[in-house]
């Protein structure tokens, strides 16, 4: 393994040697209006007909032989800047680009350079800029990042109210959601109705579905990389909004002009405040609300060093009186330091802390109560380096060391004054990674991106449980336990993850791209509910649970038409995964010391085709996305048919196996004042399990499925149309007042379809009379079964 990495480094050193007598042009590119770094701005050198793009911090570097060059800096929606420079030494050129007024009237649905679709090596990437996210019709009129990315190919959800999202047939727990590098374990407010990211504080959203670069790892399905705004370094800005569910306010401004800035943004729901006059339900301390606070600051120390400090704090609270209730929330804090070792060697070092916890409290007084909370804490140290070797090679390398602390249950019950601690032991694990990757342009036509990631995971300290064998589907018997010292290693896993992508340009307007990636996931989200929920449990890999491994190949065709006015792409993917975690029927996932005995593992596979067409410019813009997909699991002990002896599992479709998934998003500028937008979703019915029989035992009517089949039927199709109208310049935006404002009127589920979330079978909720026959029925549930209009007023000054 070491020799492989050495080999790559050696071959690179050859490339480096050939790059003597050259100079570097480098710098940061920012938005002239607010000093925000521009991510993915193009730096194009006419003489070499090539160039580079800025990284997530707005930094670029190009290496050139001595001479005179015309450099064009461009970014969508901004006026190009042309610079003629003489390169006879290293040149530092920081630039600010001005927003292009002519383009302001148009809705621009892309954040990237307009021919990136074809030219970039990236595939299987879904990117949305905050401007288009803000224009989409939103549930309850609340702009939502997670909901917006579900309009892109390969991204879906199992239904309204479900937390998180599914990518290419993967489960919710197989997505890594990063907010300024720190993982956010629960991306939802109010179960799944809203996401926790405040759009006022978000700058850039990028979802990797495949072709994942070596710098990312730790989850099987996707990486959602969310970057926060740095804050306006030129002047003070106040943005905010009054919506149906949330009120938002964000303040940003310079601490020291052009050197340092801050942003602080908060949201709070106010259904409870609005309801207070009409109900006494919120007396006695009862409450129902959620809030989040996002803050960030940065200091530009000098040309070579800048630091960023960002944090997030959010919480959902459901209390039915002062003492009893349920709450959950994330906290993250990240510190980042950008350092330039030289013009060619850019580094970023991140330190972060992330905490997710939820808790329940029951009991009316201190003599009789039950308090329980569960949390996962992560600490991380992540140095990353980018070496702009020459114009054909950009090397990234770095590492990561994570410490996980799992506290599955901190629970104390008090009965009649007798206190009982039923907490589970803390579990710890260390995950590390080393990676190296290279972006290499072999020719104008062919670009490669390849890399390796070496990941390790050590489960450490505490009680070790050794389980024996059992018929698949039954609890495994506990054979022995042993106590390890606090930091003693119990089990270590090590995996090598190769990554590879290529882009081959067929001509200037079309290209073919392909990728392969292997991912390992060492921590598992254990969920036994139809949809993911905030109380799902994170479980480390242990001596009993192996890490999940996933492989994916993808091949795509990318085409731009009519001078990049239209984009088109088609991608096929195939994924094969091992050690997918499932659970035995009836498993108890909460406060269960012996949870590992109830977990099963199996294989997964997912494949599909994604089609995407987009119109970038003009008064009418938008996109159409279609995914044809399959997602299946095979786990011994589940769906085993007549094989009562070995219970060998047969393939079955997962809950998020959506054969057809069609999304349309459209924007139309009626005039400068009015914009109309709409989106339509069609999702073919998702699988569910229907019983065949009913058994009567002790007067309970229990459903029975012949052949132990799982997901043997499908619920009816889902479709929905939303519309919204944006009216600009309501009051503040009118002449002389300064600032801008707009009103968004939206209608969710325009034709009021009762889209099914699930179908369930039950004997009803009435108390049966012992000995009398009991009726059973099937019920189809729609979480949102009506037209939902909403209005929000948004301002900035």
């Amino acid at each position, binding site marked *: 393994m070491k020799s492989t990495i050495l080999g790559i480094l050696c071959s690179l050193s050859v490339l480096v040697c050939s790059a003597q007598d050259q100079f570097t042009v480098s710098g940061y590119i920012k938005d002239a209006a607010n000093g925000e770094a521009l991510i993915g701005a193009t730096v194009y050198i006419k003489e070499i007909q090539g160039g580079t793009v800025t990284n997530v911090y707005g930094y670029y570097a190009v290496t050139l032989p001595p001479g005179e060059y015309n450099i064009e800096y461009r970014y969508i929606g901004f006026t190009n800047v042309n610079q003629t420079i003489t390169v006879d030494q290293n040149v530092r050129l920081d630039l600010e680009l001005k927003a292009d007024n002519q383009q302001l009237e148009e809705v621009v649905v892309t954040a990237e350079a307009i021919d990136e679709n074809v030219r970039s090596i990236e595939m299987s990437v879904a990117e949305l800029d905050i401007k288009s996210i803000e224009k989409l019709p939103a549930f309850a009129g609340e702009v939502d990042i997670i909901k917006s990315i579900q309009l892109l190919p390969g991204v879906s959800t199992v239904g309204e109210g479900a937390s998180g999202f599914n990518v290419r047939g993967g489960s919710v727990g197989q997505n890594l959601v990063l907010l300024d590098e720190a993982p956010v374990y629960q991306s939802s407010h109010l179960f799944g109705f809203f996401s926790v990211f405040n759009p006022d504080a978000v700058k850039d959203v990028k979802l990797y579905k495949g072709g994942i670069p070596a710098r990312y790892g730790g989850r099987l399905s996707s990486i959602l990389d969310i970057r926060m705004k740095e804050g306006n370094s030129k002047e003070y800005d106040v943005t905010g909004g009054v919506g149906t569910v949330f009120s938002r306010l964000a303040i940003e401004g310079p601490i020291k002009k052009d050197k340092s800035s801050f942003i602080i943004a908060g949201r709070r729901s106010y259904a409870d405040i609005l309801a207070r006059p009409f109900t006494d339900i919120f007396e006695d301390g*009862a409450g129902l609300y959620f809030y989040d606070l996002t803050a960030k600051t940065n200091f530009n120390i000098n040309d070579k060093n800048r630091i960023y400090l960002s944090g997030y704090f959010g919480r959902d609270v459901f209390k039915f009186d002062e003492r009893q209730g349920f709450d959950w929330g994330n906290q993250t804090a990240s510190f980042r330091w950008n350092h330039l070792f030289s013009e060619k060697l850019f580094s970023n070092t991140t330190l972060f802390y992330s905490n997710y916890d939820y808790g329940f409290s029951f009991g*009316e007084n201190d003599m009789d109560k039950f308090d329980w909370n569960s949390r996962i804490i992560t600490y991380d140290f992540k140095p990353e380096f980018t070496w702009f070797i020459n114009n054909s090679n950009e090397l990234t390398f770095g590492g990561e060391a994570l410490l996980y602390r799992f506290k599955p249950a901190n629970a104390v019950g008090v009965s009649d004054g007798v206190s009982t601690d039923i907490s589970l032991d803390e579990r710890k694990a260390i995950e590390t990674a080393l990676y190296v990757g290279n972006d290499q342009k072999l020719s104008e036509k062919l670009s490669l991106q390849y890399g390796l990631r070496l990941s390790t995971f050590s489960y450490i300290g505490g009680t070790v449980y050794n389980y024996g064998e059992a018929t698949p589907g039954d609890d495994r018997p506990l054979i022995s336990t042993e106590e390890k010292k606090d930091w003693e290693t119990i089990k270590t896993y090590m995996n090598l993850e190769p990554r590879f992508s290529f882009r081959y340009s067929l001509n200037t307007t079309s290209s073919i791209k392909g990728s392969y990636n292997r991912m390992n996931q060492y921590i598992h989200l254990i969920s036994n509910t139809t949809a993911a929920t905030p109380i799902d449990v994170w479980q480390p890999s242990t001596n009993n649970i192996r890490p999940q491994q996933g492989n994916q190949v993808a091949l795509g065709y990318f085409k731009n038409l009519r001078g990049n006015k239209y984009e088109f792409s088609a991608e096929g993917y195939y994924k094969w995964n091992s050690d997918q975690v499932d659970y035995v029927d009836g498993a108890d996932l909460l406060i269960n010391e012996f949870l590992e005995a109830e977990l099963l593992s199996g294989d997964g596979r997912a494949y599909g085709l994604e089609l995407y067409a987009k119109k970038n410019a003009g008064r009418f813009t938008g996109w159409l996305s279609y995914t044809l997909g399959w997602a299946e699991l095979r786990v011994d002990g589940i769906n085993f048919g007549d094989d009562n002896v070995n219970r060998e599992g047969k393939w079955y479709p997962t809950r998020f196996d959506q054969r057809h998934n069609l999304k349309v998003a459209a924007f139309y500028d009626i005039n400068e004042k009015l914009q109309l937008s709409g989106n339509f979703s069609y999702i073919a019915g998702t699988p569910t399990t229907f019983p065949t029989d009913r058994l009567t035992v*002790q007067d309970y009517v*229990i459903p029975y499925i012949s052949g132990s089949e799982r997901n043997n039927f499908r619920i009816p199709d889902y479709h929905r149309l939303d519309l919204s109208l944006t009216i600009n310049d309501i009051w503040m935006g009118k002449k002389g007042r300064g600032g801008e404002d707009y009103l968004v009127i939206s209608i969710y589920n325009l034709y009021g379809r009762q889209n099914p979330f699930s179908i369930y079978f039950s*004997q009803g*909720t009435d108390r049966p009379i012992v000995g009398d026959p009991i009726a059973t029925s099937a019920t189809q549930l729609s*979480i949102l*079964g009506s037209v939902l209009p909403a209005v929000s007023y948004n301002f900035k000054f």
Partner: protein
Amino acid sequence: MKKLLYIASIAIFFSCETTIFPELNEAEEILVIDAWLNNNLETQEIKITRSQPYFDSTLPAKVSGATVVVEDMNTGETYNFVEGEDSYTWTPGTTPLGVIDNIYRLTVTVDGETFEAYSDLGAVPPIDSIKFSWNEEDAFITQDYYTAEFVSTDLIGEGNTYWIKSYKNGVFLSKPDEINIAYDAGFSAGGAVDGQVFIQPIQDGANPFDEDPENDGEFLPPYVIGDSVYVEIHSINLFAFNFLQEVAIQTNRPGGFSELFATPLANVSTNFSSTTENSPTNIGGFFNIASISSRGGRLSQELADMAREAEQ
């Protein structure tokens, strides 16, 4: 939990439910043996039926002609159950069926195939008292109300499992969400509550929370003055504990917003197996033999006043 979900539903009052009649796959009509015996001096009953198509809401018919025998594996004594109108029964003379700590085997032979299941007979702790508490009105019960709880301490030794059955005014609290089981004094193994007083949610299981049919979203007071409560603790074997837990998961479907937290449909376990090796016959049901402790109480005016004073 129910209250919590109701709170959540305030925010989401848009959900709606429709009864549907989907076509299901053909029913397998498997043999179901419902055998929950106890060592009280009373007639013991075993029901043998077949499963029905899911939407068939009639009482399941008895399977006739079965041979039903319980054997004490420690003493070798056998108890032959005789076929009656609806079930198979055995009536004790002066000695009940079952000695604590002995192991019992039930064998049922139907159509030439024999099925068997084992259960040990565990001990139960006594119920020390029944307590009533007074509660101020809240958002869900819009009058001051009384709740009942039983007080009992788990037997020492890890792994005791119990089924607590409660009755209000002689009516068994038979809703799926009223299934109240305990592993030692807590909810599950590994809870480290061996030998303790049962945790509060289990003691509170004696309370019915029925929705007020006249006021949507409100609940009736669990107990009013004059009501009686009667609680039984049944000892169950570990497999029966798991079985009841699965039954609770599969049958407690209040619908609405709680469906977000619902578990996918799956078959519950059984402790019956065929004595024929690799038999393809599927079977359902359960065999458990229990000892029972019990205690009752009535909420008199006097007890109600005392409860109110204690709280105020």
